[in-house]
């Protein structure tokens, strides 16, 4: 079974100031599957997610201990090790937030932004990859005629798919999603759900969700957090 595990979390503890948010969390997250993290509000679901790309490092007065092992191209690596370059890690482990956060620029430039950060400027390559990412995020048909319009003119659901496309353009091995449908209406949410199901082939998805039905519809595996402790529940 080891071959199919993508992320192995061992004795992960997370403290915010004096408050312990995650307490000795141990879990395995399967590759090419959707794993949902569920549980009541304020129990550290989002924190657990940000430990997987170390975005938690950006918050002051926090302390992390334990191990988060991720298998990148067959090799296990402890991403909590201080020598791991954060920008490299975050290109491998993409993230989509609860509220869509397009940058104040055009649709095309939003998606190309991640490539720009890696220093890729060759126009034809960038164009191809932007189109590909938008196709994978089910957005191409809706925006092909207005790629150079301000991204903030899109609807909420479209903006969220744009953010997914922006994360996908770097071909991440893991995609983290923090309640990706909670700010959208049910119809836009359904589109995103079916999108996630197709993305499973390409990468490993870890999603925080509040909705029981959504978890039932899309998740292959569920991790339940309660008071900072994790209980794995097979569906």
């Amino acid at each position, binding site marked *: 079974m080891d071959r199919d595990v993508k992320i192995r979390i061992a004795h992960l503890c997370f403290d915010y100031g004096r408050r312990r948010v995650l307490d000795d969390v141990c879990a395995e997250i399967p590759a090419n599957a959707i794993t949902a993290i569920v549980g009541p509000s304020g129990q550290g679901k989002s924190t657990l997610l940000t430990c997987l*790309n170390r*975005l938690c490092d*950006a918050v*002051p007065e926090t302390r992390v201990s334990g191990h988060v092992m991720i298998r990148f191209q067959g090799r296990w690596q402890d991403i909590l090790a201080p020598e791991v370059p*954060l*920008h*490299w*890690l*975050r*290109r491998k482990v*993409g*993230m989509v*937030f609860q*509220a869509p*956060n397009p*940058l*104040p*620029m*055009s649709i095309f*430039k939003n998606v190309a*932004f*991640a490539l*720009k*950060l*890696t220093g890729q400027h060759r126009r034809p390559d960038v164009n191809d990859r932007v189109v590909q990412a938008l196709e994978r995020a089910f957005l191409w048909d809706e925006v092909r005629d207005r790629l150079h319009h*301000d991204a903030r003119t899109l609807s909420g659901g479209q903006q969220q798919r744009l953010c997914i496309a*922006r*994360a996908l353009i*770097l071909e991440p091995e893991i995609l983290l999603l923090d309640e990706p449908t909670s700010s959208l209406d049910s119809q836009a949410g359904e589109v995103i759900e079916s999108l996630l199901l197709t993305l499973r082939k390409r990468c490993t998805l870890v999603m925080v969700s509040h909705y029981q039905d959504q978890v039932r519809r899309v998740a292959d595996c569920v991790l339940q957090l309660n008071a900072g402790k994790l209980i794995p529940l097979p569906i």
Partner: protein
Amino acid sequence: MKQPPLDMFVRLVSWGSTLLLLASVATVIGFLLFKGYGSFDLKLVFGDTPPLEALLLRRPVFGGLFPAMVGTLSLVVLAISLAVPIGLAAGIYMAEYGRGRIQQALGLFFDILAGVPSIVVGLFGFSVAVFLHRHFGGRIYPCLLISALSLAFLVLPYLIRTTQNALEALPEAVRLTAPALGATRLQNIRFVLLPRALPGILSGAILAIGRCAEDTAVIMLTGVVATAGLPRSLFSSYEALPFYIYYISAQYRDSAELATGYAAALILLAICAMLFAAAALIKQRLGARSHQRL
């Protein structure tokens, strides 16, 4: 629904305060216009020199305000271009890199610096000029460069604090967008945080421009004189409008001369308005550019 009395009261006071402020501004400008309008003509600016000759710097202007206008403009441009890069860099440090005690101590230091009266900054600039005069073979006197450096020093704390505040006010969602896509800290600052904080930063710069243009105490001690003609170099003395206004109001011989002081005040206001407009234009341009380029 009827508004509760307290709401009504707050609204009334807010409106009243705004009106009071507008009325004071209108009164000041109206007063200046009334007093200074009579002496407003080309002769006031260019003296007996033909305007075109003066503008092309072919012939010097005597007895006109033109040298003082050029002096004030060069002073502001010089001081702002010295202060903005340093203020911006220090503000970025305070908001993005500084942590804990060092950041707090620096914050306190900048606040104290902001509270230093301009006459003290002027005295400091004067001491620097005296020091340089003694140690560089007596060739350096109070001059345009020392005035500009002192003014830059005067406005630095504003620039630092507004840059810091504008950056710190950005919401967490904006702050995390680029790092989540693999941006380094510098990339995040350059591509996302600075463009988003730009309006705030520029309003700090506008305040600083105003302060540089109107300050009299600093320049009085560091190089401004009543008659010098156009500034010849960074190391020459110069004329400036605020000093002219001060000089005329202190030593006028007749009411006509006093009226030129009012007219000079109007010109100073116009120059400030022009500089503000330029800053607003840059703000708009940079905003549009960051939108296009990124």
